C-alpha cells in the first residue's frame, strides 16, 4: 500500500497473489483496526473498493527543488511518506514552469492516494538556496537564476490554497536527520549537503538555527581561494567555485569528456579512479570549511548528505579526515562524521517535517470556525519556535 498509494481490492489481490476473498477479509479486519480506509470507486466501469492507508488527521506535502530534479511527497502525521514522485529538471529551470509542475504534481499525488484536496493541510518546500523563512524568499541574489524576486511561498500558497512554508534544503535535511535520522540521538548537529552546490544546516539544541534571514551555515560561500573565480553570489573564490558541480565536471572534461554529476557518482562507485579522486578531493576541501563551522558551534555529529554522499566513504572519508585535522581535538567527545541515514529522502522528509511543525499550530486554530489560510505562514515567522509559540490570535 505504501508503494502504490491506493489500490482497489482487485488490484491488491493481483499484487499480492492472494484470492479476492482473502483480501476482502484482511481489508475488513484492518479497517476495523483503523489501519486502512476504504471508499467506493469505479474501475473500468465496474464498482470497486479503493483501499488506502488510514489518515485521520490529513496530509502534508513536501516539495524539493534541486538543481536537476524536483521531488514531491505526501506524508501523514505518522511521519510516513504515503506517495512520492520525482522528476528530472533542466539546468537553470524556470521558476514559473517549476512551480506550476510542482503544484500539479501535488494534486496528482493526492489523486493517486485517493485523497480529496481538503485533506491537504500544509506544504513544505526545500530550495537549494538560502531562504528567509518569514517571507519565503531567497535571501541571496543570483544563486537560483530567475527565482530572486519571487515570493516563492506566496505563489505556491496562492496556487494550492494552502499555507506554504519554504526553507533551505540543507536546513530541512538537517531537521529530518535530527528528528529521524543519523543525528536523532544528539542535540547539536550539522548536516553538510554536498550536491550540485554545497551548503550546511545547523541544529542547535534540537532546533534548526537559520540565522536572522536564513544564511546560517552557508559554507558553500565561504572564501577558500582569494584569487579564485567570481561566484554566482557575487563574491570571489567561494567553496562552491571549487567543489560545485560545474567545477568538478570541468576537472574531468579533458580526460572523461562531458559527464553529468550522476555519471561522476556512478563511475566513482564503479571504481573509476579519476571520478573517485575528484569526489575525494572535494570531500577534503569541504571538510576544511566544515571544521571552521564546527569549531564555532561544537556539534556532536556531522552528517554528510546530498547526491555526492551516495558515493559513501569516497566522499565521507576525506571529509572526516579533513575535519579531524582542522578541528581542535576535543578529548571528552570527539566529533563524529557520519553518512546521512535518510539519503536522498532527507530534504523532502525535512520539508514534510517543517510542514507538520507549522500545522500543529494551524490545527489548534482550526478548532475555531473559518480557518484563515495564511495562519500557517504567519506562525512560521517565528523560526524554529513554531511549536512553542502557541496559536497566534
Amino acid at each position, binding site marked *: 500500500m505504501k508503494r502504490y498509494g491506493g489500490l482497489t481490492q482487485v488490484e491488491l489481490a493481483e499484487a499480492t497473489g492472494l484470492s479476492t476473498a482473502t483480501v476482502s477479509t484482511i481489508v475488513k479486519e484492518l479497517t476495523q483496526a483503523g489501519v486502512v480506509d476504504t471508499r467506493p470507486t469505479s474501475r*473500468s466501469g465496474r464498482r470497486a473498493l479503493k483501499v488506502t492507508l488510514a489518515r485521520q488527521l490529513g496530509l502534508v506535502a513536501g516539495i524539493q527543488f534541486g538543481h536537476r530534479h524536483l521531488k514531491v511527497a505526501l506524508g501523514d502525521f505518522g511521519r510516513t511518506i504515503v506517495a512520492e514522485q520525482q*522528476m528530472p*529538471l533542466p539546468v537553470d529551470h524556470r521558476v514559473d514552469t517549476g512551480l506550476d509542475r510542482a503544484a500539479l*504534481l501535488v494534486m496528482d499525488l493526492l489523486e493517486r492516494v485517493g485523497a480529496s484536496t481538503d485533506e491537504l493541510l500544509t506544504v513544505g518546500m526545500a530550495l537549494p538556496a538560502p531562504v528567509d523563512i518569514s517571507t519565503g524568499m531567497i535571501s541571496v541574489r543570483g544563486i537560483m537564476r530567475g527565482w530572486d524576486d519571487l515570493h516563492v511561498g506566496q505563489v505556491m500558497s496562492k496556487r494550492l490554497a494552502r499555507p506554504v512554508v519554504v526553507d533551505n534544503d540543507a536546513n530541512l535535511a538537517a531537521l529530518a536527520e535530527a528528528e529521524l535520522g543519523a543525528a536523532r540521538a544528539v542535540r547539536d548537529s550539522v548536516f553538510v549537503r554536498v550536491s550540485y552546490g554545497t551548503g550546511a544546516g545547523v541544529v542547535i539544541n534540537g532546533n534548526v538555527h537559520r540565522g536572522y534571514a536564513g544564511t546560517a551555515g552557508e559554507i558553500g560561500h565561504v572564501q577558500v581561494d582569494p584569487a579564485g573565480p567570481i561566484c554566482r553570489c557575487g563574491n570571489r573564490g567561494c567553496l562552491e567555485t571549487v567543489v560545485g558541480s560545474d567545477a568538478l565536471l570541468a576537472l574531468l572534461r579533458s580526460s*572523461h569528456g562531458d559527464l553529468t554529476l*550522476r555519471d561522476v557518482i556512478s563511475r566513482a562507485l564503479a571504481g573509476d579512479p579519476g571520478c573517485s579522486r575528484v569526489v575525494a578531493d572535494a570531500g577534503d576541501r569541504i571538510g576544511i570549511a566544515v571544521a571552521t563551522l564546527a569549531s564555532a558551534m561544537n556539534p556532536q555529529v556531522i552528517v554528510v548528505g546530498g547526491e555526492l554522499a551516495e558515493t559513501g566513504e569516497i566522499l565521507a572519508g576525506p571529509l572526516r579526515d579533513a575535519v579531524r585535522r582542522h578541528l581542535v581535538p576535543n578529548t571528552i567527545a570527539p566529533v563524529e562524521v557520519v553518512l546521512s541515514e535518510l539519503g536522498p529522502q532527507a530534504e523532502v522528509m525535512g520539508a514534510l517535517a517543517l510542514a507538520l511543525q507549522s500545522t500543529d499550530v494551524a490545527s489548534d486554530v482550526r478548532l475555531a470556525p473559518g480557518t484563515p489560510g495564511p495562519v500557517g505562514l504567519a506562525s512560521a515567522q517565528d523560526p524554529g519556535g513554531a511549536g512553542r509559540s502557541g496559536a497566534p490570535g
Partner: protein
Amino acid sequence: MSSSSALPALSLHGIDKSFGAVRALEGIDLEVHRGEVVALVGDNAAGKSTLAKVIAGVLTPDAGIIESDGVPVTIPSPAAAHALGIATVFQDLALCDNLDVVSNLYLGRELHRGPRLDEAAMEENARRILRDLTSRIPSVRTLVSDLSGGQRQSVAIARTLLGDPRIVVLDEPTASLSVSQTAEVLTHIERLRDLGHAVILISHNMTDVRAVADRIEVLRHGRNNGSFSGPGTSYEEIIAAITGAMTTPRRSVRLG
C-alpha cells in the same frame, strides 16, 4: 554510460529523403553514443518523425550512410532495425487494450516451454523490466485499458527493452501526458541512459528536453540547424535555432 566512448552506437551521414517534390530530409547528420540521450527538436514538419522512421526501418532514405558501431549498414525493414538492436516507440504506442501487460510485452514473441507458453518466465521478466524502470504498475496482469497514459508509455518502453536493444528511439513520449506521468517517463529516460542504452528523444517540450538530454540536435526544414550541449544551452538559443532566428554552424557547440 559514456558520451565519450570511441564509436557512436549509431551514426547517420548525409541522409536525404524526398516524398515527391517535398524534400523531407536534406543531408542530415546524427550521432548517438551509448549512455547518451540525444534530443531531436524542431518545428512541425521539420523532419523529426521522418528521421525516426528512417532509423526504425519504416522508411528507406534516398541517399546517405548509416553506421552501427562504425559498421556501414542498411535498415530496409523494421525487422532489420530490430536485428541491429534499434527499438522505437512511436507516438501511438501500438499497445493492445484488451490484453494484459505481460501479453503486450511479449506479443508476437511469446516464450515457450515445450508446446505451451511459459507464462511464469514471461511474468517474471516483465516484473523485472518494469522494476528496472522504477515503474509503478501494481500488477503485470492488469489490462492495458486500465492503465493511465504514463503507465501505458512505460509498458511501451518496457516492451522495447525486451530485446535488450542498444538504441531506443522515443517519438514524442510526453505529448498529452499529465505532469506526474511526464515525470515518470522522464525518469524512465534517465534510467535508460544509466542502463547504458543510447536514447534518441523526439520532443516539442523544451523543458522536458533540457531536463534529460545530453545533446540537443535542432532540425529545421529537413536540415541540421545546430547541435547544442544539453546542460550548457539556454532555452533562447535552442528556440532561436528552431525558429531560424539564428543559424548555428554545424557541430560548433559540441564539446569534448
